[in-house]
């Protein structure tokens, strides 16, 4: 069920991964209600988990005095999620390639690499403490067939 109207939501959560999990469920439920495909739900959940853990743990360093601001906007074609922490930020260019042979067993950068792979786009803004994740909606095969023009013959 889609209305065509973008639905925008903004929440602020404490630097606590339990709060992050609850928010993740809230966003995923919304996408499920809008009948996003399973593969999209998988990618968004994975990216949300990685981005929220990064913001809470690495950005805010679990500091109870700091919050994470999350806003997301869903419409018929995509979901855009913005996550901002109050940490010092980082330069994503400094993160080593986790798939290089010499880094394969290191803990660094795998989360960002997965976000890039599963999202349509991911961009770090400001000092690196704000990330924008975009997932374009996959069109189901039957719907795509229905929408394609009939073949002439």
């Amino acid at each position, binding site marked *: 069920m889609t209305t065509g109207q973008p639905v925008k939501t903004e929440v602020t959560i404490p630097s606590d*991964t*339990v709060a992050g*999990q609850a928010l993740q469920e809230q966003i995923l439920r919304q996408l499920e209600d809008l009948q996003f495909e399973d*593969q999209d739900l*998988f990618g968004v*959940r*994975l990216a949300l*988990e*990685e981005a929220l*853990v990064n913001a809470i*743990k690495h950005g805010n360093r679990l500091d109870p005095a700091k919050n994470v601001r999350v806003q997301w906007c869903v419409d018929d074609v995509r979901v855009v999620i913005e996550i901002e922490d109050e940490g010092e930020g980082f330069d994503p260019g400094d993160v080593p390639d*986790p*798939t290089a042979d010499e880094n*394969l*067993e290191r*803990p660094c950068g*795998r*989360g960002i*690499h*997965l976000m890039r*792979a*599963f999202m349509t786009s991911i961009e770090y803004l400001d000092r690196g403490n704000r990330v924008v994740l975009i997932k374009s909606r996959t069109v189901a095969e039957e719907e795509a067939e229905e929408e394609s023009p009939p073949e002439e013959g």
Partner: protein
Amino acid sequence: MSTRKIDVEEVNAVTVAKFTDKKILDETNIQIIANQLFSLIDDDHRKKIVLDFATVEYLSSAALGKLITLDKKVKADKGELRLCTIRKDILEVFKITKLDKLFKIFETREKALAGF
């Protein structure tokens, strides 16, 4: 005492550990699962371990990190770790991170047990 997060059984001298959770997310949860897996090597010194992912629907990079540590522990104890029954989405996670090169991954439990 934490909730049991893995079901462990012995099949022909091979330890088969099956995850009980659908989602291997959240730091605390991942640490509990990791401790239970590490105990198989640190306390029980099991040498041949098959990790069955049949139940698992989601897994994060933090969980991958623990699996790498587990693999190192098994190898340090002169053992071998095999993974099996990984659903398509999760297998993609292993492929994207190129960890499919590091781990021995089998399609089914039977194939993982064969010749172990």
